[in-house]
């Protein structure tokens, strides 16, 4: 969707035009579903995450964030967050109910992340980040650590880690932005 099309859609949403949400669904649902599937690997759960994101879009249609981020990035992030929350719930329940013998703990996330960021464009964009920013993104985005856990792991103050995350994400948005629209 073009920037002008996005702006028009945002304007219609803010005006309570319900057909705009249907249009947004047709434009963005497929990508949102793909993002959710990367986290959930379960079609029904991924669809739940997508539906949650679009209902949330309607709820926040008049807010500043949708306008500032653009509908596509906003939906992708909210879908991913919904998927992560569903995955956490599923993991807690399955661990509680199914684990007679605990499964082995996961490997060190940063080692896995460094070894497995295979997509070339993504790899290049991450490689171009300053070392400390790259480490935050690898741990927090790919490794699933919270920023507080990143701070503990790297020995950096939490505020510094958050600043690095912000700078890294802004840089990645510029580098990879064409894909995200």
């Amino acid at each position, binding site marked *: 969707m073009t920037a002008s099309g996005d702006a028009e859609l945002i304007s219609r949403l803010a005006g*309570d035009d319900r057909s705009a949400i249907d249009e947004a669904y047709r434009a963005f649902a497929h990508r949102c579903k793909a993002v959710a599937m990367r986290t959930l690997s379960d079609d029904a759960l991924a669809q739940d995450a997508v539906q949650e994101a679009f209902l949330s879009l309607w709820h926040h249609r008049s807010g500043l964030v949708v306008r500032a981020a653009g509908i596509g990035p906003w939906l992708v992030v909210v879908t991913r967050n919904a998927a992560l929350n569903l995955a956490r719930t599923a993991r807690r329940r399955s661990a509680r109910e199914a684990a007679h013998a605990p499964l082995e703990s996961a490997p060190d996330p940063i080692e896995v992340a460094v070894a497995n960021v295979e997509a070339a464009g993504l790899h290049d964009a991450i490689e171009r980040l300053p070392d400390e920013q790259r480490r935050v993104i690898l741990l927090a985005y790919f490794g699933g650590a919270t920023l507080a856990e990143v701070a503990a792991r790297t020995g950096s103050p939490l505020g510094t880690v958050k600043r690095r995350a912000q700078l890294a994400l802004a840089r990645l948005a510029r580098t990879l932005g064409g894909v995200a629209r």
Partner: protein
Amino acid sequence: MIEHPTGLLQSLALGELDRDEALAVMEHADSCAECAGELADAMRGVAALASSAVAEQPRSAKPAARLRDSRWLVGGLAAAVLALGVWNVQLETTAASVPVDALVHSHFAHHALAGIGGQAKLIQALDGSWVYIVATGLRPLRAYDVLVDGTKIGSVRADLRGEATGYWRRQAGKISSAALAGQDSTLRWDGR
């Protein structure tokens, strides 16, 4: 309303916050230009990462299931418009319908899948009408076929941590064996 949750904006964009925390931060940012701008920057970065990964993901051999018809939005939106507080309840209802709830409320059995290259468990309804796979220690990002009694019922892809889960409904019936088969490793349960 919270005062400039600056430290939480990146956490929200990265998916660290639970629903209630995220909602509170978003509500603030929706009416605060300063926080909206910072959150939007972080969102664009995360969306770029997520979209890049999806765009560059190898195509699956099996086409993705079609999206359900978007007409569900009519009902969902009508309820949301009638009462702003209702949508959260609806979402909880949606989330409560996830298959793993069956694990809590149904009688089930589970079996360890043995082999080299990871660990996995198959959880099944006693009547065999659904199965759930949870695995760890797999090769990150690799795809694995799930076989029940020698028949492929689906596949999972390990995440960056080498973990994978999947749930499938099937025709009820006794399950005598199961396997999680990857390119260079297979985990099996042979019914004993």
